[in-house]
């Protein structure tokens, strides 16, 4: 069938065009960032070369990329899923903290349980923590009381305070009184790690979630209903789709996924509950989802890219003596270029 072939060719050329566009965006952003490095009296070529050798070309560096991708993927899907219903979840960071807190609560309250119970328990608790933090804005939005963007944003400020309260107060470890943190979790609550690196079972959860996200959206009737709400909320409601219920569910699931990211950080990396357990993964997740247009493969690619960029922050700190936050300039530039290039046609689709 010539038409089918034509359509296929069209699709391929489109994919090529999109990839080229992203490559171009990255190139422009890197060039602009190089100018800034130059202005700061650093050697951009050396900076990029260092970044490359310490991340992609180095087994340890590469393992660290996967470590970073673990929460980023979850935090991105946490934004992407509600975005398919036209909801804007900027509360990933708060949901991540609350997930970490709930998971920690599970680990600290039942230290004697065997791993086969405790591990699923902390995973579920982590999910629930984030889910609660997502469901609150969901309910407020479904009841047409408060816009979910505002509510999720504001809850970001509360969750880290809850964590702080507990690690300064009831959960504060006696052994390390100088540093506010909980005591170490029992071994049974820790996510197993692999290959003598910091890569932990969370990466499997992240990849499974990404796959499930794609399956649910594209292959199930739930996906059809959610996309219908995103595509035309009025029609969805008139056609009998329970829009309000879906709004709560989507934000709760989104929050739960961010909560899983927080769980992974405390159970897979830190082994305790601490302040500052996330260097803004929740917010970076928002950028990833946005840039990827909510598409699963795009999220995978973008999460990888952002893992490199944030690793670059560490590298530049060590090799060039630049503050970590310079990478935020690079992130902002990428966002800016993408937004500037996108025709004003609303949000990601």
């Amino acid at each position, binding site marked *: 069938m010539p038409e089918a072939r034509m359509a296929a060719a069209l699709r391929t050329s489109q994919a090529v065009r999109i990839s080229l566009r992203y490559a171009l965006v990255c190139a422009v952003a890197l060039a602009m960032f190089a100018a800034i490095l130059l202005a700061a009296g650093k050697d951009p070529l050396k900076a990029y070369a260092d970044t490359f050798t310490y991340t992609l070309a180095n087994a340890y560096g590469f393992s660290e990329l996967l470590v970073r991708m673990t929460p980023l993927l979850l935090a991105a899907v946490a934004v992407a899923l509600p975005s398919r219903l036209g909801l804007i979840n900027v509360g990933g960071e708060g949901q991540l903290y609350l997930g970490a807190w709930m998971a920690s609560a599970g680990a600290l309250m039942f230290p004697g349980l065997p791993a086969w119970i405790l591990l699923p328990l902390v995973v579920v608790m982590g999910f629930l923590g984030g889910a609660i933090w997502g469901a609150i804005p969901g309910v407020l939005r479904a009841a047409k009381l408060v816009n979910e963007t505002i509510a999720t944003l504001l809850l970001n400020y509360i969750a880290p305070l809850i964590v702080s309260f507990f690690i300064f107060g009831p959960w504060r470890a006696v052994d390390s009184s100088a540093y506010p943190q909980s005591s170490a979790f029992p071994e049974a609550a820790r996510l197993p790690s692999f290959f003598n690196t910091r890569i932990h079972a969370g990466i499997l959860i992240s990849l499974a979630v990404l796959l499930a996200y794609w399956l649910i959206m594209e292959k199930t009737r739930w996906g059809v209903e959610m996309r*219908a709400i995103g595509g035309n909320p009025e029609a969805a409601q008139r056609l009998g*789709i329970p829009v309000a219920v879906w709004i709560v569910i989507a934000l709760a699931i989104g929050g739960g996924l961010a909560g899983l990211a927080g769980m992974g950080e405390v159970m897979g990396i830190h082994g305790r509950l601490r302040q500052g357990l996330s260097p803004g993964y929740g917010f970076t997740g928002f950028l990833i989802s946005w840039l990827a247009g909510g598409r699963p493969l795009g999220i995978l690619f973008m999460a990888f890219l952002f893992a490199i960029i944030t690793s670059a922050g560490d590298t530049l700190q060590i090799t060039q003596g630049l503050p970590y936050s310079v990478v935020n300039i690079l992130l902002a530039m990428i966002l800016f270029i993408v937004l500037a290039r996108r025709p004003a046609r609303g949000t990601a689709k």
Partner: protein
Amino acid sequence: MTHPVSTPLLEVRGISKRYGAVLANDQVDLSLYGGEVHALLGENGAGKSTLSKIMYGFTRPDSGEILLGGKPVDLHSPRDARALGIGMVFQNFLLIPALSVLENIALFLTDLPPIFRREAVEQRIREFGERFGLVVDPWAQVRQLSVGDQQKVEILKLLLAQARVLILDEPTKVLAPHEVVALFRVFEVLKAEGYSILFITHKLREVVACADRITVMRQGRVEGRLTSGQADVDTLVTMMFGEGGAGEPTATGTVPEQPPSTLPIFELRGASSKATGSETPLKNLDVSIGAGEIVGVAGVSGSGQKELGDLILGLRPLSTGSKWFCGADASSWTIARIRESGVAFVPEDPLVMAAVPGMSVRENLVLGTGRRYWKGATINWRALEVAMGKSFSALAFPVPGLDPPMGALSGGNLQRVVIAREMAHKPKLVVALYPTRGLDVRSALSVRDLLRRVRDGGGGVLLISEDLEELAEMADRLLVLYGGAIAGEFKRGVWQAEQVGHLMTGSKEALHA
């Protein structure tokens, strides 16, 4: 009225445009002369809107050329077209409801300085309004205008922007009959001043009434060209659909004398509902739709038709009174429950109210079918396609491609999909608001036929329409809605158009026959 010597204001030659597997325009030639109304006809999906968007620079053709006053031009965007004196009114108006008429028009005028004197624009609006019979209050907010007046604003916009060629895509689709008459008077003045008008419509009698020349399209090609003298409704229909095409609808002679069933299918008892913004509150409605009955609802737009429909659907809560469906109190049923118990709903604006433009036609077909096609976590697409295929063929509608997005369908094809979906599961009650709007004559006939079949099968139909002829043909009983209340009720054949017309405009007290 032919123009053998003068050059056309606007001419297109050999225009082709392909969308995937569909050749929307195939080597189309068309010329528009000054001082003529040129009607463009064709069945749903024939390519009329595509052609007009190409002439307005909104869509780029794959091949072909556009000539303005005999010189080839390259239209990259509507801005180019406007600069060359081509203006278009889309099917869906592009006015900003919160702004005044003056502001809406001013926004459109590119030659206006950043700080402009409102009085100067007002002056021009009044001048043009009087000259062409397009009088509207420049200070009125657009949201408060009737559709007919909004249409006037759209045309004024083009005239003030100095368009000489006006392309109007189904301008009469949402107009009440008297507004259509007013629009045609405007056409006369415009013609006399040398403007050229391309006029797309499905109402053939309008064409015969006002067109100087007629071009008929079919499956992307020009099927024939006629001048006003040669055209009558039958010729046009044959050209549009080929041999065996449908004729104009004829009133059914048979009024089935159903014994009035004891239990109505649907009832509103003393139902009221509050309104916000520009909505119309419903006041104490008593409506009953019997089994085997088509109840028509007449009224000028904004009399509460939308609100009545939404009340039945369950989108709008009752403030007093109750709602009954087949003997059960349905006052607090959800929309899903109403729909699942056998209510089909055709809203007045299917693109906004019943379709998700970004999703495929197939996915749109499953929306609103409740749990019928659930298969575990997925959907039984095959069963859906079979059922919908049957529904399309019961309506004699061609089945559209199921993979393209819903938003790519032509206006009439979208309406067909929505109707086919709603009618697919033997509805007990059909609530249809202007269901034949935007449909070509043959599809409109099939829809009316199907509504009658629902009635004859013992179902109930609530047909809300502004078209008194359609209501006269279809309704067994007619309610007249005015200001959210029932102003009159008539049995079939007992009423006269004039009487109903008075009630519709509120100029006469309720009169029950």
